[in-house]
């Protein structure tokens, strides 16, 4: 059985590759070169990451390849993300990367290259083409994987799904993997530590506009581009004094950001959600009681899903804070990730 494992140069995918070798698979490591552009204040570390991935492949004595997906990644992930921000939403590029690159382009390229299966270092499990939550509930990454197809999952191994992050670290140390002590990368990989604001600033022209207090209708400050603000956001609002303000809405056309000091504002706490672009991994359709997650690592909340035409309506048992348009609501039942949709 020939398995092509995506190796990012991080500890997770390194251990995933090591475990596959130990399990007797014929393993080839693949570094997906998706992004290599530096940003002001942040050097893209892709070359070091590639070298680290290759170091581990050499340690494991496995073949190693580089797939250059930069053009596709830019088109299918980055451009999508920028478009969404410009439309006033807060997209999730990691979900798009899994849907378009890792479990589509990588899979098809690997299969064409002679692979029987692919593998990644995600914290998730599969069973008969179904997507199951990882044993480590805190690390579980199924939120990012809900738009993957069942066919792709049938061709995918997640060697880390049974382990906790702590176990993964110590297993990597035990094996002396080169990347065992490597620092975790945070945030959207290509945006990194500089933040989305600086990244978007490279691609879109933004105009300053008013920050409006919804309660009084008064302009209480200026913002440097409505696209930078996300529903529920508290920090980074350059309005001084008094109680903290929260973003409760924005009007892209008028280029205004609305805020409130009322943390209980009904615009922040929602019980009813509408989802577009529903995706179900196995089911044709799902209706009924389930658990829903609104952000990676957010708690699972009781909910009812109703499908109406090509939309999903979700009624949450308790109001949740900052269900942000563009982000995903992901549906779970009995530890299985069924699918979900994009919050409108």
């Amino acid at each position, binding site marked *: 059985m020939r398995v092509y494992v995506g190796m990012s140069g991080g500890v997770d995918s390194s251990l995933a590759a090591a475990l596959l070798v130990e399990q007797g698979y014929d393993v080839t490591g693949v570094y997906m070169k998706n992004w290599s552009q530096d940003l002001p204040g942040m050097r893209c570390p892709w070359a070091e990451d590639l070298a680290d991935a290759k170091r581990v492949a*050499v340690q494991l*004595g496995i073949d190693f390849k580089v797939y250059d997906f930069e053009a596709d990644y830019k088109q299918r992930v980055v451009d999508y993300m920028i478009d969404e921000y410009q439309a006033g939403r807060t997209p999730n590029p990691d979900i798009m990367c899994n849907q378009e690159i890792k479990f589509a382009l990588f899979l098809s390229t690997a299969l064409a290259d002679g692979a029987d299966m692919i593998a990644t270092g995600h914290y998730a499990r599969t069973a008969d083409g179904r997507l199951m939550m990882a044993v480590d509930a805190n690390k579980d990454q199924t939120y990012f994987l809900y738009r993957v197809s069942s066919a792709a999952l049938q061709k995918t191994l997640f060697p880390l799904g049974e382990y906790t992050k702590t176990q993964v670290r110590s297993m990597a140390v035990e094996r002396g993997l080169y990347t065992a002590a490597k620092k975790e990368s945070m945030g959207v990989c290509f945006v990194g530590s500089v933040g989305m604001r600086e990244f978007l600033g490279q691609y879109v022209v933004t105009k300053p506009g008013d920050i409006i207090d919804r309660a009084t209708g008064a302009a209480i400050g200026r913002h440097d581009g409505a696209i930078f603000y996300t529903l529920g956001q508290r920090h980074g609002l350059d309005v001084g004094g008094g109680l903290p303000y929260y973003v409760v809405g924005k009007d892209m056309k008028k280029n205004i950001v609305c805020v409130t000091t009322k943390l209980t504002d009904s615009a922040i706490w929602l019980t009813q959600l509408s989802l577009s672009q529903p995706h179900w991994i196995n089911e044709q359709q799902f209706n009924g009681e389930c658990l829903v997650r609104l952000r990676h690592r957010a708690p699972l909340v009781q909910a009812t899903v109703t499908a109406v035409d090509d939309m999903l309506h979700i009624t949450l048992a308790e109001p949740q804070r900052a269900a942000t348009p563009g982000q995903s609501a992901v549906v779970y039942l009995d530890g299985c990730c069924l699918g979900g949709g994009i919050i409108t």
Partner: protein
Amino acid sequence: MKQPYYYLDHAAATPLDDRVVTAMQPYLQDDFFNPSGPYAPAVEVRRDYESAKHRLAICIGAKLDEIVITAGATESINLMIHSTGGHIVTTAIEHHAVLEAVAQREHTLVAVGPSGVVRSADVRAAITPKTQLVSIALANNEIGTVQPMREIGEIVRAERARRIEAGEAAPIYFHSDASQGAGQLDINVARLGLDALTLNAGKMYGPKQVGLLWVASRIELIPLVVGGGQERGLRSGTENVAGVVGFATALELVCQRRKSESVRLGGLRDYLQQRLCDVFPDAVVTGSYKKRLAGHLHISFPGIDAERLVFALESRQVLVATGSACAANYGTRSHVLTALGVAPDIADGSLRITLGHLNDDTNIREAADILVEVIGNEYRRVGR
């Protein structure tokens, strides 16, 4: 140096000699004064600085006031080329510092054959009446081949004589970057037949970011860095006293040891080459065997990915450079190997082994054992 490293990359960087560190030490703290200062301690630092430059000049057979201190060979090369008009002749295997500096200028790259040694006749053929500079490195930094400097120097002189005879005004000069060969080859500017010379302290057990450009007094330099007028106005910025004192000490030391060190490194290199070629009969050594730096071995294992070897070797404490590509610049191979017509699979399988102070008999024997084992493992892994 802390063992147990087997450091086989002296062409990339060298550690400071203890005596260099000792010589530099006073100028880092006690004698930190700006050499331009008016008070006695500063004047004394100025004197030490000039004396260090004088020592540098003596080592290369030049005069003190013909030397400009720079922040390394790249700057020296840029200063030289910046100061030159007309057409420039150089080779296809020069360092990027030269190639990038001449890129926007009218120039000719002399082709170099598989030996890696430039034919002086080809240099002669490339010189036109408009040529004002011939710049050729004494020894190639990748494959270690040594160029026929005296022959080329003769050609440049003959062209100069012809121009004088013909009443042509355009000058022509011969510049060489000798950074790579200084520890193993004669670098006397008169014997090499040079009009200009670049050296780099960092390749000879001195500090990094310190170099010099020597030019014969008839050459007028045009500064790249202007300001306070230091270095006779040719390179402004407060003098790097510690660096230059370290540079002078380092150059004196390598000059003293040059002959014995060349013999010693040649012996170690030949042993390594023999051993690797015996065990791996399809190994390919690139560049002339004879006209090559004593400590330099560019060896390829066709069909093997050299970067894998580097990673496998580093985990066994053997530090060595690839001879060409790495996965991060996939598809771009060394311009030197490409110029020599080295086939892609040979280029991709090549290691650059460069020996120096950190190597001795035992060290190289042990390194050879590890090389044989690691390269053998990789051959077995790919099924050869």
